């Protein structure tokens, strides 16, 4: 199971990286969301994989590590706020600049945008 999870984390990271390297804002948003999935999963499993043992006292014989869970919980919510900020930034940029490319382009080099 550990191997599978590690591969999944790696692949999610790879997909996220590939997406944020694209030149359009929407792909960057997708990439960042994907990367935050990967990172959240990574932090979550830093406590080890535990099945059937939620961190609720008295509910089971052993407990999963609660600390990474607490960290990831807030990270998910803040991640949403940050994604939203980025989205709005992109919308504003499109409205102001008329295109959705991420790079500052010098006027003479802007071609078929």
């Amino acid at each position, binding site marked *: 199971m550990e191997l599978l999870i590690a591969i999944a984390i790696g*692949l999610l990271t790879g997909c996220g990286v590939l997406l944020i390297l694209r030149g359009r804002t*929407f792909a960057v948003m997708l990439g960042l969301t994907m990367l935050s999935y990967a990172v959240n999963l990574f932090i979550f499993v830093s406590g080890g994989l535990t099945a059937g043992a939620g961190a*609720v006292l008295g509910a089971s014989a052993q407990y999963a590590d609660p*600390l990474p869970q607490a960290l990831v919980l*807030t990270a998910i919510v803040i*991640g949403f706020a940050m*994604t939203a900020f980025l989205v709005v*930034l*992109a*919308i504003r940029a499109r409205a102001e600049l008329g295109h959705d490319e991420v790079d500052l382009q010098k006027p003479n080099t802007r071609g078929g945008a």
Partner: protein
Amino acid sequence: MALLLPWILSIPLFSIVILLLFRQLSRNEQTLIALLAPIAGLLLLAPMIPDLLQGAVFQQQWQWLPVLGLQWTFRLDALALLFSLLIFGIGLLVIFYARYYLSASDPMPRFYASLLLFMLAMLGIVLSGNVLQLWMFWELTSISSFLLISYWSHRSDARKGARLALTVTAAGGLALLVGLILLGQVAGSYQLDVILSKGPQIIADAQYPLILVLILLGAFTKSAQFPFHFWLPNAMAAPTPVSAYLHSATMVKAGIFLLIRLYPAIAGTDLWFSLVSLAGLLTLLTGAYFALFQHDIKGLLAYSTISHLGLITLLLGLDTDLATVAAIFHIINHAVFKASLFMAAGIIDHETGSRDMRKINGLWHFMPVTASLAMVAAASMAGVPLLNGFLSKEMFFSQTLHQSVLGALSWLLPLLATLAAVFSVAYSARFIHDVFFNGKPIGLDKIPHEPPRYMRVPMEVLVALCIGVGVFPQWLVGDILLAASTAALQQTPPAYSLALWHGLNLPLLMSVVAFVAGIVLYINRKELFLFQAGFQSTLAIHRFEGQVQRLVQRCRQFSQWAEPGRLQWYIAAMLWAMVLLAGYPLLQLNSLQGERGLLPTDWFSAVLVVIMVLAAMATVIWQRQRLLALIMISVVGLMLSLLFIRFSAPDLALTQLAVEVATAVLLMLALYFLPHRSPKQSAHATLLRDLILAGSCAIVVGSLAYLMLTHQADSVSAYFLANAKSGGGGTNVVNVILVDFRGFDTFGEITVLGIAALGIYKLLTGIPRFKPSADADGRSWALDAHPLMLRVVSQGLLPLALLVSVYLFFRGHNLPGGGFVAGLVTAVALIMQYIAHGVDWVKPRLNLQFSALIASGILIAWLTGTASWLFGKPFLTSWFNYFDIPLLGQIELASAIAFDLGVYLTVVGSTLLILANLGKLTTRHKPEHLGQI
């Protein structure tokens, strides 16, 4: 009385605040407030003087950063007293003088505030009992000097001069800092007392040469010693009161003060004698020589100052204790006569509009009183008997005769000293003759006359001191000179006598020779000027500015190279750095496999993971068809929340699920405003390059994850598990961590959430109108915007969803749930109403101020935290207890629930503020007449 010491420093600060706050005061009132600082300072010092002259040391100390050896220590001994009197005394006169010097258009509060800031900094240096503290004030003098030189900031020479002075003195200051830190390490303390008592140990240390050189660099740059003297003439662009105060009487003496202060600790070695005496000698000679050729009065005085500073440094470099006494005596004398000369230069500039000695001649006829005063001061500078300059110069001559620093060549020193004195007489003669006699003024804009009566008062005081000290030296300065010398040397100096007449001796002969030769030199100056004109000289300021321009150019090139304005470039650089930094240690390992037991693979999880990975890849592949990509990425998120359930994190699963909905709505809204498809853009080479980077990241992160998963690590979590119930009163440990153990973090996080939402709100206001009327394929928006089915279902679901969120909220402390999850569920339920009915329908029915919701959430969380202060507990200490309530049974009440309410409100407010505002835009911008665009 030591308690008074901090007050001496705070009074200038007080005056600064008043000056800056009440800018409307009249010029006289502002002057009075500025004068308050030195007057009060002198009054505070007065009662301590008798004790200090007896050798007392007052000290006051506070702990600041004891670990770093930083204590605030104020230390006042006779040497510090002498300098404090100079700083206050000359400061008092200069402030008074500046009242008449500055014109009505010059901003006076800024001038006085900077001047008082300097006064404070200089006092700080003098009164510091800790060398690091001394260094801070040292840098503050550089900064205030910068502000004062550039006071007339519209003038280019003022800006350049200020920049040059700051660069040189601050660079020296950095060297000094390193030197002082090393000194403190060797001595074992940064306290001055300790350092002064550890002289032999410091000198014996292997690092002593380095320490000495670094400290000398600091002192020499500050005191304009050769080869760092070039900044001082350029600092003459400052208003003349500043030149009189900072650049002749006090600040340039700071370097010398430091040398005297640390004399018992670092002096007395051959290295000290050769470095200090050589620098002093060269400065003495170059300063005196170049002073003669200046046409600007202030230029002449500046080079003369350099020369006199060199003289003092040279005295410190001579290997006798008496030389140090002479040095301290000359500090007093030079401050007095040079300040008055600068004031004369200021008056002349003020009344004639020029400082060029080729133009201003024969002023004796226009301003006889000022002329007489200036001539007395200049005579003192030349070393004429009956004036104070004569006495210390005699002491200097006599010390050059009793030294052996140059070994067998030591006889050269008296000769060179006489040579410098010859030039000093010559430039003093030029100052007197060229300005006040020598024909008539040439091409002046106005007819000169005497200055306002009171402008001359400070000069009169100083000139009276010149004569007074010159005639009755023992009576006026004998006591304080002896006490200051004793404090400097940390032992009683050998016997000496301060008197006008020591009989016919060699020093007197040297004076006579210098006087005659100086006059002869001045009379024959034409040949010398011709000789000097033969040199091609580039001014230091131009060289410096050239260097600055080149540096700026280089920096611009570098930043253009490093910041090409390409996001992809930045991200790639950061990711490659991560790959290399995290990948390199992996290469050192033999195996990723660790000792931890593995969890067997089950089909359910495997399927989840496979779907998740496939969906992620599909997102990448279909990323140009944006709606499809959006759906795919939602699949990834969904699978992730199922994985959270599978691996015992129900709280996370709930949160992820709710956020997933919100994110999907968000991205859908984004698609409304953004193009729905991306054009094919990347070249194959780019794609390959990105694939390599993505692959490397995948490999490194995946390996790290595996490494982490198979190794057992110590965790603090056992503590949380053990104390959640007893300390936090809850059985859901994740929630207890959030609202109790790490409550302060959570408080920060909800604040960030609120700020992000408000930022989004701000970004969306005033966004240019942008109206897409159809999608990428030309299909216009559906006419039936709000399908009936969705309307009915969502309306029915709302109370249910709210009930669920309340349930999740209340059970959160003991079972999966809590403020975050409940908030998200509420927000999603409300968002559903917006989607199903539109903003116009929801708005009158749900009249919520989202920003007020956020604010009240953060406020509630904060109040919950501060409530524990009422009980004398630290911020966010939680409280809980159990109550028996009839019918309901035992109920637990915990303060954490109030905190969680804050979290809940913030989450609801933020999510709705973001999504509703974004959604509102689509409504507002909805094309009213379809098909017409």
